[in-house]
């Protein structure tokens, strides 16, 4: 593990050579982040989640919830909801296309060469035939959306999940995912190709995509945020289960097999 961290630190100066302050910051985040990816002991919460920073996370959750209820606007169709479908699809497809180079880099780091080459093809097709990524012509051609990030790369390399985290605005995460997020932020291949203002287009597109997805799944998110007895604990268990499923990680307690005969059901 220490060798891997060392490997990261060696790479950082090259990757962020243009921003010395950011480089130092990224280094600190990596060291504290990965060192902090502690392996949990026995389940700390009722649902077996490792959440050593729960009080701080709950404060962030309260903040996120205020933003969410401000944006969802009580039953009235919001701005995002009222947008015509072609516009929404355009934003989502564009965001996917500009994120593809990063996905390819990560899949190469994960040793998933087939998926990396499929995504390279997907990028070429959508960036050209798909009018700069606005139309997803690759999916019907058998090249469906398949995203990855550095959080997944860290999982593939064997880093532990670490404690649960809730990030401001971005929502649920883990220590491993948060480190991945920072690394992705500083290693986007687009940033090396595009001049300064254009390279931030990607983050605008991503934010737009997030807002569209949140409005598409509004009812389900409302059910968790407004309808549950403890929205923090619900969001935590649901997000962790979904993320572990995406990663194919079934090693963690709570996501494993539930024995249909190992309970005393007397009286129920």
């Amino acid at each position, binding site marked *: 593990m220490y060798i891997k961290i060392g490997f990261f630190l060696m790479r950082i100066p090259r990757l962020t050579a243009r921003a010395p302050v950011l480089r130092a910051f990224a280094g600190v985040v990596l060291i504290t982040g990965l060192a902090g990816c502690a392996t949990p002991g026995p389940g700390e919460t*009722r*649902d077996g989640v490792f959440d050593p920073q729960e009080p701080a996370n709950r404060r962030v959750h309260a903040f996120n919830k205020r933003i969410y209820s401000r944006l969802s606007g009580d039953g009235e169709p919001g701005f995002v909801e009222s947008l015509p479908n072609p516009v929404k699809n355009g934003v989502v497809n564009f965001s996917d296309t500009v994120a593809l180079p990063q996905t390819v880099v990560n899949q190469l780091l994960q040793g998933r060469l087939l998926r990396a080459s499929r995504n390279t093809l997907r990028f070429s097709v959508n960036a050209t035939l798909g009018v700069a990524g606005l139309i997803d012509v690759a999916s019907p051609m058998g090249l469906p*959306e398949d995203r990855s990030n550095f959080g997944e790369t860290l999982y593939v390399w064997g880093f532990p999940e670490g404690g649960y985290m809730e990030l401001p605005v971005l929502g649920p995460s883990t220590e491993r995912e948060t480190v991945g997020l920072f690394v992705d932020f500083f290693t986007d291949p687009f940033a090396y190709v595009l001049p300064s203002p254009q390279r931030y287009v990607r983050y605008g597109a991503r934010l737009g995509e997030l807002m569209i997805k949140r409005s*598409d799944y509004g*009812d*389900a998110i409302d*059910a968790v945020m407004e*309808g*549950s*007895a*403890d929205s923090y*604990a*619900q969001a935590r*268990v*649901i997000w962790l*289960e*979904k993320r*572990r*499923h*995406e990663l194919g990680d079934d090693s963690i307690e*709570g*996501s494993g*097999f*539930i*024995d*249909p*005969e190992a*309970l*005393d*059901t007397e*009286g*129920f």
Partner: protein
Amino acid sequence: MGYFTSRRGFLAGALSAGALAGLPGVAGAASAAQAEQLVQGLVGDVNTVIASGASEAAMIAEFERIFVRYGDMPYIAAYVMGADGRRATGAQKKAFTAAFQGYAARKYGKQFRKFIGSAINVSGTQKVKNAYQVATVAKLRGQSPFEVTFFVGEKSGRFYNMYVEGVNMLLTERTEIGAMLDLRRGDIDAMIADLRQAG
């Protein structure tokens, strides 16, 4: 018909029939087929209710009936109540099971209603220890398809859990019931009263 009357075809047919007949004794394959049948029946009933176009209240009442018909209710109730179930009285346990049924039908039924015009298809069955995992794919209009996996107990022959895109219903509901108990400082009767209104 011609296939079975040719000699090679007859042999192949006899072999596959023998394989089917021989499997139950080896790995409980008849149960695997039953598990798949159970989920087919469940999915078929849910699809029928969705297609009926009845009112929301009527649909939810139907969903509760389906849930009770196919689900291992005592197991689900005992699991979601978790450790707190051990200190519950017999009457509380019965009341909890009944309240949970209605709550689950309301909560999941509201989500099912959006499946109008959609199709849920069984894609495969796998045996894991003493349970069968029946994988289905739900195709919704205008959305990418997603996986719903049903877990059927080998002994009970009923479904006791489902995963929607990897999200475990039993675990999620245990968290929710635990949170409801915390809100009532562990008062089981108060939690059951809340549960009757929730979902």
